[in-house]
């Protein structure tokens, strides 16, 4: 009886505060403020929000057994820090895409702390943080946050470019990067001069790069960084420098195809003229001696 009352009471307070906070947020988003000032404002509004959370903490605390342990809150804190670090790394690496090569180490530490949180093993004080942090509520915030980044990581295929344990870039990737740099330097070198010169002089580099990329494509050892870099290089090569193959041999192709198209005409003409037309012998079936049917049909026709 009494614990039930307790909980409902706490629930009531939390609900009140929630309404307060969310009301603030609602006001903020609803009002149309120019983007620049919104940054300022939001930080201003954020503070009272933080304050209210603090005040909630001060105001009340859950009984011992429901509270998370210090160890777990420590883990949570570290998770937050690493999360922020990773996101901070990701955003500037969005364009041109360098998310794998720049941020793999911070992702590594993030996974490390998450695996600590989600591991079965009990920390000091005989507590496992997995249940209390990851799945004690509907929102499952920590889990969802981590899961989002994990999806991003998987989508970008970064694991193909990074060695096991997030130590370093793979040698393939490094090799690719060197060749890529070589090609780009070559581009830069000739860019000012003649475009056709660029096409002839950088061809070997570019071709090597293409071959390498083709091989990696086949082995499925590419990540988004490599794909994006290659796409950009290809676009430079074909669109900016216009080095694709020109359509040059229109005449021989037309000649050969019109010859081919001419053949059936000859064939049909010759078979029409020379082949003996197939004739069918008509057979007269035995019928009863009455011509009424034939006459009827002829009547019908006329």
């Amino acid at each position, binding site marked *: 009886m009494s614990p039930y009352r307790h909980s409902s009471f706490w629930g009531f307070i939390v609900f009140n505060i929630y309404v307060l906070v969310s009301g603030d947020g609602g006001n903020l988003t609803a009002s149309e403020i120019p983007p620049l000032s919104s940054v300022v404002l939001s930080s201003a509004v954020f503070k009272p929000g933080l304050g209210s959370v603090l005040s909630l903490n001060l105001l009340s605390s859950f009984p011992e057994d429901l509270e998370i342990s210090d160890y777990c809150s420590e883990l949570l804190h570290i998770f937050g820090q690493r999360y922020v670090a990773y996101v901070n790394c990701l955003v500037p690496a969005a364009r041109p895409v360098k998310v794998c090569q720049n941020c793999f180490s911070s992702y590594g530490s993030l996974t490390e702390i998450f695996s600590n949180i989600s591991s079965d093993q009990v920390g000091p004080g005989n507590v496992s943080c997995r249940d209390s942090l990851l799945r004690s509520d509907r929102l499952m915030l920590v889990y969802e946050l981590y899961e989002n980044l994990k999806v991003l990581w998987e989508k970008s295929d970064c694991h193909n470019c990074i060695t096991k344990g997030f130590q370093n870039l793979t040698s393939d990737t490094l090799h690719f990067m060197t060749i890529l740099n070589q090609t780009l330097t070559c581009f830069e070198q000739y860019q000012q001069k003649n475009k056709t010169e660029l096409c002839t002089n950088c061809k070997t580099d570019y071709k090597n790069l293409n071959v390498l990329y083709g091989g990696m494509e086949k082995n499925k050892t590419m990540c988004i960084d490599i794909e994006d870099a290659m796409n950009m290089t290809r676009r430079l090569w074909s669109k900016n420098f216009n080095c*694709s193959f020109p359509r040059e041999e229109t005449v021989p192709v037309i000649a050969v*195809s019109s010859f081919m198209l001419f053949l059936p005409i000859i064939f049909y003409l010759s078979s029409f003229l020379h082949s003996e037309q197939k004739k*069918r012998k008509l057979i007269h079936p035995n019928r009863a001696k009455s011509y009424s049917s034939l006459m009827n049909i002829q009547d019908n026709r006329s």
Partner: protein
Amino acid sequence: MANITKKVSWSSRADESGATGEGTPLLNGSEQPRHSRQDSLRGRPKEIPHNEKLLSLKYESLDYDNIENQLFLEEERRMSHMGFRCLEISRWVVCGLIGFLTGLIACFIDIVVEELAGIKYQVVKENIEKFTEVGGLSISLILWAVFNSAFVMVGAIIVAYFEPIAAGSGIPQIKCYLNGVKIPRVVRLKTLVVKVGGVICSVVGGLAVGKEGPMIHSGAVVAAGVSQGRSTSLKRDFKIFEYFRRDTEKRDFVSAGAAAGVSAAFGAPVGGVLFSLEEGASFWNQMLTWRIFFASMISTFTLNFFLSIYHNKPGDLSNPGLINFGRFETESVAYNLYEIPLFIAMGAIGGLLGALFNVLNYWLTIFRIRYVHRPCLQVMEAMLVAAVTATVSFTMIYFSNDCQPLGPDHTEEYPLQLFCADGEYNSMATAFFNTPERSVRSLFHNQPGTYNPLTLGLFTLTYFFLACWTYGLAVSAGVFIPSLLIGAAWGRLFGILLASITTTGSTWAVPGKYALMGAAAQLGGIVRMTLSLTVIMVEATGNITYGLPIMLVLMTSKIVGDYFVEGLYDIHIKLQSVPFLHWEAPATSHWLTAREVMSSPVTCLNRIEKPAKLCGLILRSQLIVLLKHKVFVELARSRLTHRKLQLKDFRDAYPRFPPIQSIHVSQDERECMMDLMEFMNATPYTVPQETSLPRVFKLFRALGLRHLVVVDDENRVVGLVTRKDLARYHLGKHGLEELQLAQT
């Protein structure tokens, strides 16, 4: 001794050995001179060029009617209750086997085509890439053309020289078989082998064809072979399923085989059953439906299972048919009420284009029958078509400026870059430089914007004429996939245009959806199948939501198309001069009576009185067996221990009865008598002379008759109606017309 009556109508003269030899009467050679005198009186037989208004003597009816003679009754009496049970079980076993083997064949065709086509496209692709760089693309063009011609040459040679009946899709032939026409050699093992080899060659050879139609024929051959428990070609008799060695049982199994073929081709078991129902609808019972469904299911399951092993995913049963339309995702599936008129309009376009296709193909086929009838010419023609197909495809790809970026998941199997920027591919090449099945799938499922309208328009145009030109060549190949492809291309074009001219169109006019409707419309406009095609399309897309639109589209295209010309299969049946009985007698034929329809006089075998009263009916094939076994009354008297002829002896001779020339009847034996009492069917169906044509027609169609005896008031035989007597009336432009009989 009983009255012995025997009839030979001209219809049964049509054996393979030709009619002159067959003119020899069965027993007394004295009739021969009289016969020739008659001929000379009529003058020399008229010769005319082949046209559609002929009936060939080559075709006979199948004997669907049970011959209830004394032997039959005796055997039935001897058979225990258990025996009948076993028969029922063995029917199920046979159906299971049919499904299994059909699935295996489909699987074999699919794998071989995929491998060979893979090699071909890989080689050509590498060649093109090489020559794009250094120049000399015309050499790639020649290489491609030579590849195609070489494959097609092999396919055409085996068809033209070894088994001409295996040409085409085989659906018209199976349609005729289920209708009750005995097409010579249509369900033989040799046909199957040639068919399978031929279809592989023609698909790999890059012709505008599909491998789905031949699957139906293959299924039918498998069924006819398995159910007999022996192979006459291999001279092996397994001594099983002997009871099934007659036309009635065989027909049931053949319809199961056709269903299994459809089911393997499209992954549509229900569609297969309905196909058999639609094409062979006159003879049907519920138990048979259930068995056929079983065969279909087994067939699609077998294909699925073995393909999953081939794709290294054993147990993953997601390849139900040879053609896989792929799954339509949920958001693009939705269609709105206001789209239905658009679909109907597409149906009308499909009907028009289908009619155009059929008319063009009709003229082409007539030309082919008249002028391109020598096997070597046929092979050359097929090779030319293959070379031109490659040339046209190459030219289209070469001059196309439609470049699209390579997708992340590489839906294009053999992307050709040619003159596109690096990282892009030529969009025309996905349509042309690919097996037709893959092209259909990419038209259905690629994202909006993958093809630009000009590409689609040009593709539709060229592929339409190529497909029309290809159908009817001496290669075994189907018309389903090309029609689907043409339809999918213009349907997608329709969708794209719709999206661009309407303001909100880009949200609801998903090109893939319109591609599907276009494909249905085009296919419906060409083959004019209704019920089964709807179900096949619904099943192949795995999407029941599209049921209504597809049905409306097919209905419209059939109505519009029928206004101009018949379906492609019906045209080809007509051009082959097959005595095909349609669902109904021609409309204005009630004034025709049996007297006018029948053949007369009938050769009657009798001893006692003349003209004889009807006692029974005996078939030519039975007489031949009797003569072969020398069942003469005199011999039986002299040898008391003479073995009695059993039904088994007739079954052993089935289905290749020897021609009459191979039976030796000595001079003495010509004087002998034969007692036909036991062997004849004592209760044949008869009609009085005044019966109208539609009534006779109904009897034929519903009972699957082969002969119908016309008798007068005193039960004397005055004539005999056979299939050809009925099939010669048809409703033409000027009312009722009569087809002429000809020797082909």
